[in-house]
């Protein structure tokens, strides 16, 4: 199937498109920077709340954080969706097919982040990769990296803690994905894959469909923002709400005594708490921000967040169709240990 390019739009339409995009970008930038001063003015000067009061601080945190996170989310989802429109699962499969472990795991992890991939496609993608001769460990690196190094998490971490933390997180996530995949591959994880996977016939994949025009890519970007923000909003508001309450009501350094960076039980506890929970990064991170301000170690919190997003019950249930229980258990164990180590490392270093 040849790749067809869409009919080129007129230059007038092109101009409106790029003009609109530039305008939106400028507006975003302005909103992001006036966010804090605006709410401070509105709540404390205009309405007259007391900034030192618990109620005042709680409300300020809630509105400021909601606005900030919504801006960050829209920005990153838009940009990443457009970047990802250049990649596909089929192309990733072709790139990884028949390669050996090691470097392929690294490539798989990076591609896991770059490829547009919905976790409901985990099963067809798994079968597709196996049929193309991608080693099981490499496929697992892909499947682990995708939810773990989540662009929402990265951008929110950047917004809350700066680019160093965001970068460290991305790097740690990729490392976990690579090492977990290599480990499971070394353990000959193939023997724990449901046999039918190796027998499935997968039709020839190719660069299917149209190569989208820029206009379409931008449309996809805005659609994706609308969809994801809609999906994430309830989790987000609950997370920010809890964060706001903690911000206003929990005494400073409350956690320092019980769950600070030097408490060796904090990280395993956080990871165990995170495994059965199902949320997305946008819901967990506002909570993380507030808890960190009250003294919980950064490593502990990142470990918690990773456990929540990387090891989700719905995804495990999906993967059960292709992976035997032993492999599901091994998967959780290996990734869990990786997260644990990252937690300890960050607590020690940050």
């Amino acid at each position, binding site marked *: 199937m040849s790749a067809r390019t869409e009919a080129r739009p007129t230059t007038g339409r092109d101009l409106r498109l790029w003009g609109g995009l530039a305008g939106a970008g400028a507006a975003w930038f302005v909103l992001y920077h006036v966010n804090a001063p605006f709410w401070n003015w509105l709540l404390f000067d205009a309405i007259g709340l007391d900034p030192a009061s618990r109620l005042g601080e709680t409300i300020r945190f809630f509105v400021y954080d909601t606005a900030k996170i919504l801006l960050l989310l829209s920005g990153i989802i838009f940009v990443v969706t457009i970047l990802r429109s250049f990649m596909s699962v089929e192309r990733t499969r072709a790139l990884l097919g028949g390669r050996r472990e090691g470097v392929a795991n690294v490539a798989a992890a990076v591609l896991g982040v770059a490829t547009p*991939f*919905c976790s409901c496609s985990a099963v067809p*993608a798994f*079968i*597709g990769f196996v049929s193309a001769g991608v080693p099981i460990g490499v496929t697992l690196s892909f499947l682990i990296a995708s939810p773990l190094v989540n662009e929402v998490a990265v951008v929110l971490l950047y917004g809350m803690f700066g680019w160093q933390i965001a970068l460290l997180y991305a790097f740690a996530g990729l490392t976990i994905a690579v090492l977990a995949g290599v480990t499971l591959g070394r353990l000959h994880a193939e023997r724990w894959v449901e046999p039918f996977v190796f027998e499935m016939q997968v039709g020839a994949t190719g660069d*299917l469909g149209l190569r989208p025009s820029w206009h379409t890519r931008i449309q996809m970007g805005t659609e994706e923002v609308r*969809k994801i923000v809609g999906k994430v909003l309830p989790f987000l508001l609950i997370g920010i709400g809890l964060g706001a309450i903690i911000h206003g009501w929990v005494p400073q350094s409350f956690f320092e005594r019980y769950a600070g960076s030097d408490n060796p039980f904090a990280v395993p506890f956080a990871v165990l708490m995170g495994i059965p929970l199902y949320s997305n990064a946008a819901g967990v991170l506002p909570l993380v921000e507030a808890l960190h301000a009250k003294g919980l170690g950064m490593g502990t919190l990142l470990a918690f967040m990773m456990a929540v997003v990387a090891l989700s019950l719905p995804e495990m249930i999906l993967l059960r169709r292709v992976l035997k229980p032993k492999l599901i258990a091994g998967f959780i164990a290996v990734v869990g240990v990786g997260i644990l180590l990252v937690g300890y490392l960050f607590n020690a270093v940050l």
Partner: protein
Amino acid sequence: MTIDIRVLGPGCYRCQALYENTMLAVDELPIDARVTKVEDIGEMLSRGILASPALVVDDELVMAGNVPTVAKLRDLLSQLVPSRSDT
């Protein structure tokens, strides 16, 4: 002749969104089409689809991997349909 349109996907919100958008697009067009949602992974894989959701019109794979807007689907379908009508 009724056009057979299938929305393939194991069933997450994107597959559902494509199904709904397709239904809306078909309603807006003067074509006779039957839209079905297929959740069987086997059928997806036999067509070489790895990324859901996917759109198959009269047994030809039209697109896969993302969810186009209703307008986009309308354009897509109206481009494809003239080559299929028997009238």
